[in-house]
């Protein structure tokens, strides 16, 4: 039995939610160790400049960085948008969506550009 189409409003929520979920998982699994590398091991002198450059240039390193830049941006965009709506900006939720998801797309494009031209 199918419900009349007019009864349900189509929503693009599942699309943004899946990017949010994927970004949350990538940030959860890959981000802490990356922060340890750039924030602790570099200042401690355990990771040299040459080695860090080598890691960034390696094809797997580039894929790792692209995943770590792109998907967590969508996680941030979605969570931050709804946090601001919970704090009283519910009326401009649509505008916030355009702004934050737009920023996530822009950051993804920047990341792809930097990583391709390396």
């Amino acid at each position, binding site marked *: 039995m199918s419900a009349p189409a007019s009864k349900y409003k189509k929503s693009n929520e599942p699309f943004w939610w899946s990017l949010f979920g994927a970004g949350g998982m990538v940030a959860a699994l890959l981000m802490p160790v990356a922060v340890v*590398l750039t924030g602790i091991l570099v200042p401690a002198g355990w990771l040299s400049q040459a080695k860090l450059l080598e890691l960034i240039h390696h094809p797997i390193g580039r894929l790792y960085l692209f995943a770590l830049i792109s998907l967590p941006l969508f996680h941030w965009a979605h969570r931050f948008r709804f946090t601001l709506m919970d704090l009283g900006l519910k009326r401009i939720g649509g505008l916030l969506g355009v702004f934050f998801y737009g920023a996530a797309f822009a950051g993804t494009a920047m990341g792809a550009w930097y990583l391709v031209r390396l």
Partner: protein
Amino acid sequence: MTSRELAPREYVQPIRRSSWWLSRGTYFWFMIRELTALFVFIYVLFLLALVARAPSSDSFTRFFEYMKSPTSMGWHLAVLVMVLYHTVTFLNLTPKAIVLWRGEQKVPPAAIASAHYIVWIAVSLTVLWIALG
């Protein structure tokens, strides 16, 4: 009773102040969890700055010197604390998103969360091993 009182009344939403999340401990920790997204964003901006400087050895050297500064270490530590809070809260929620059945038996939620923690630790150790090897 007058008929006016019996008429169905519209639901009036109580006024919510933007400081509602300070009223209870659980709300506060919820908001801290939401705030981790901001630190995730800050770190992504750092990564963009890092890869933008990678092609030029001069600007990369200057950026690498900055990474060794106390300023960089300070905000990195703040990001690390918040990102770890994100990891723990996110992985703890995995059994809510993934429900597995083995025949008639539901796979215990703790097993699903533990599997994700094992993956997290394995991935982190692999990255450290490659970076320091």
